């Protein structure tokens, strides 16, 4: 069971308090009518399946209820960063280098 840090509550809690919502930083297009069919399918269904450093969405569903993002190494399961929704994605390569992954 993973240990997850909620950047709103500022506490580390077991994974059972959270729900993982897949890849982060996939914004719903602001004007869906102008999006091509291919791009809409991409938005709906296609996600990266990274072996390595990956930014994903989490929700502290049994805590504060807030959505936030985390950077996790998908092989080791080590978390390299937690940050609030709306904050920019950190540079994944830099994070990976710092962690020696």
């Amino acid at each position, binding site marked *: *069971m*993973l*240990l997850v840090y909620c950047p709103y509550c500022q506490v580390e809690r*077991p994974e059972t308090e959270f*729900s993982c*919502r897949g890849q982060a930083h996939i*914004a*719903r*297009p602001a*004007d*869906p*009518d102008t*999006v091509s*069919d291919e791009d*809409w*399918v991409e*938005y*709906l269904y296609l996600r990266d399946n990274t072996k390595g450093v990956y930014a994903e*969405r989490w*929700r502290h*569903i049994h805590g504060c*209820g*807030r*959505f936030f993002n985390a950077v996790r190494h998908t092989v*080791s*399961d080590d978390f390299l960063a937690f940050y609030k*929704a*709306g904050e920019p994605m950190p540079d994944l390569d830099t994070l990976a280098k710092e962690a020696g992954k």
Partner: protein
Amino acid sequence: MSQPFRTEKGGRIDRGDQLTFMFDGEQMQGHKGDTLASALLANGVHLVGRSFKYHRPRGIVTAGSEEPNALVGIYRKGDQTPNLRATQVELYQGLEAISQNRFPSLSFDVGAVNDLLSPLFPAGFYYKTFMWPKSFWDRVYEPIIRAAAGLGRPPKNPDHDSYGNIYEHCDVLIAGSGPAGLAAALAAAETGAKVILCDEQAQFGGSLLSEANATIDGKAAGDWVSGTIAKLSAMDNVTLLNRTTAFGYFAHNYIALAERVTEHMSDPDPKLPRERLWQVRAKEVVIASGAIERPMVFPENDRPGILLADAGRTYLNRYGVKVGHKVVVATACDSAWQAAFDLNDHGVEVAAICDMRETPPESLVSIAKARGIRVEAGCVVTGTLGRKRIKAALIGRLMTSGQVASGGQIDCDALLMSGGWTPTVSLYSQSRGKVVWDQDKGAYVPGVSVQKERSVGGAKGLYGLQATLEDGYAAGEQAAKAATGKSAAVTRAVASGGEAGSGGTLGAIPHDRNPARVKAFVDYQNDVTAKDVKLAVREGMQSIEHIKRYTTTGMATDQGRLSNMNALQIASGALERPVTQVGLTTFRLPYTPTSFGLFAGVSRGDFFDPVRKTPSHEWAVENGGVFEDVGQWKRTWYFPKSGEDMHAAVARECKMVRETVGLFDASTLGKIEVVGPDAAEFLERMYTNPWKKLAPGRCRYGLLLNDAGFIVDDGVMGRLAEDRFHITTTTGGAPNVFATMEDYLQTEWPDLDVWITSTTEQYAVAAVQGPKAREVIAPFIEGIDLSAEKLPHMSVRECTFAGVPCRLFRISFTGELGFEINVPKRHGKMMWETLAKEIEKHNGVPYGTETMHVLRAEKGFIIVGQDTDGTVTPHDAGMSWAIGKKKHDFVGKRGLERPDLVAEGRKQLVGLLTKDPKVKLEEGAQITSRGAPKTGTPAEGHVTSSYYSPALDRNIALAIVKNGQALEGKTLYVPMPDGSIEVEVTSPVFYDKEGARLNV
């Protein structure tokens, strides 16, 4: 004579405490401190089981949790627990054990015929035999093999024991309490760090408990253990857990421990759990799981009386039991020599020490010679004689050519073997660490740590008592420092004796026997021989993972701790590739077999899943309601009167709702309060319908899609004020709708000033439906005008019901005049009882979910999740009217324009009427365009809802059918096993198509 193989003195058993136990109905004696295995051996019993495939007689091989053969059933509290390892079962007064996998008895087992039929069971026989003609396999071989193979029988009754659970945090967790583990615990504890030390055995001390010669700080090893444990248990920061196996190492240093609490007691306190699950989050972990000895793979190495050398030494020094009176020691390494010397000290005749090595260390040879023990160097065991117990060992000489020359036979009643040592890397492997091959040690050892752990001592292939202690102290200090930043000076104990030996062998032992006729076992528990591994390679298996599955080697309960390295070497030889290029299978949890009860804990029976009850629950129970489970909810299904079956009750309830009035508990519906200046804008974006122009006091049906364009939920939204909506969701969809709304609100539209709150549990809801509904509620509603003019269909008001605050909706899911009364949940029982009494005056009825379903189906109202399946759009469901045509955007709008969703040939919601009104379709039945479709004909759709309709006095159904909306009036077929049913496609609205009954 009782216990003929018990030593005169020594061992850690309590000789003053004699215990009586039963094995296969025979009464025997043992002592407190014995395991079942040591007590059996003390009584001269080696034969304890029959092997899995060939039913060969098998004896105790080890003294630990890796035991492959001595699996027994233990009777307790009138039931039997199968497959317990006799080497771990502690003896208590009155213990009752049975052997397994034999019929009719252990010494005469008809299944042993399998041994003679062994050409039928080569490697991969599961795969090969299934290829045989089906009839041959089904009727002849399969039943025989199934009956003959296998281990113990499962218990007959539900588990009568309870299981505990503890969450714990610590700075340093140490798994294993041999010299390295104890030293690590001392070093870590001294810093003040919070330490947990666990060991799977009853007593702490690991290998030190079997040590007769070496000393620590001048004390006997066992005494040093006792002193150390006394010291640790006096420290508040240390938790000592014996009989506790660290069986799982998960991510982020999360370790699962299984503590056996009562199974070693003859009469435990009934309040105690049988086992306790410890879920530990450790800042740092020290893996001190030691190493285990490897069997030697020589022909007939599975006879009862053949044990690992270290097990022989453990039985002698720890339990005061001699494995035999005349023992042959076969070895490839130094450590087994000490077993021979220890046995010799207790008067056991050591018939010979056969060492594979041409020149074993002179220091050992001279001791043996001084004791008068025959030493055979460059010598291997090539076979054994005896059936239920070894009688003699055949020996052979290794020649420089690589051939083996016969060396005669040596009589014996036990044989101790040692192929060297294998570090126990299971926990390290579970922690996702990759093992690396150490050529010098001839073993895989832990590589780089992936998590916050370090292996110490034997677990990383480090041997020798002094070196192991040093390693333990250093690891304990380092772990505590890493966890807490603190360090402390610890006086390190100094050992004398117990030096590390050398030597070891891997793989099959060369011999001079006919290879076609002999069996040399690699995996005892699964009956896998060296020949099987070679055959698997010949038949094309290249990877060890394939060889493992093809032969089942390493798939026993020890996960190959005993067998893997030998199998690997044999495969490596057959593949002509170095061991490192053959690969190693991954160790997975659990480290040893772990009971289901431990995992279930208290989550069984009433505690398996939460039960949610509605405010009418007690009233419904008292009034004969029949319940159905809807998710976690208990909902009243129907209310039968005496003598009524379900059909009759539902028909009566339906009829009365349409004729007079019915009362229904709708409290399970999901409810969400949407509040804020942007509340209408938010709903505008979430739901298909337009919301901004909905006046306060009015309601609207809302359809929720996902962004792919498919229906995911529906409900009625009431606007209470400009900035406040009370919305409902389906019963099952409530949590998901709420989470979806939060998701969009927090991450896509954080600019919207809206708050949403789940109020499902805040309100009790009673639906009053039927022509008399207004008259029923009128006496209790205050503060508003209930007339049709002032409170038209699809309205909402805040008022009071019987003096308590109330949100009154005029809505209908039945097609009749209807109201849904929401009161604070604490008043729900009062509301229900008040209304239940009132409807009697109007000849009304309470009704359940089945009637609700029938009434809504008569009106063609869909149930999301029953009439839709996640691939249905509003257009498919005939609900294009629910889409706000002028809206710029809503969730699902763009999705609805995708090519597949606007293409011809989509499945659409229709009504179906069977040509014979008495015939009821089965929900889920497939629909075809022809009456007698050929196998393989694609279905045109399927039946989603099907009921007898009392209003129409015939059966009706809803269905999803390809191009269904264009097929109205056409005939389709529902093929069933006894012929096709003819159906006519109709509108899904069967009753009161104009909706006249609503507007009264």
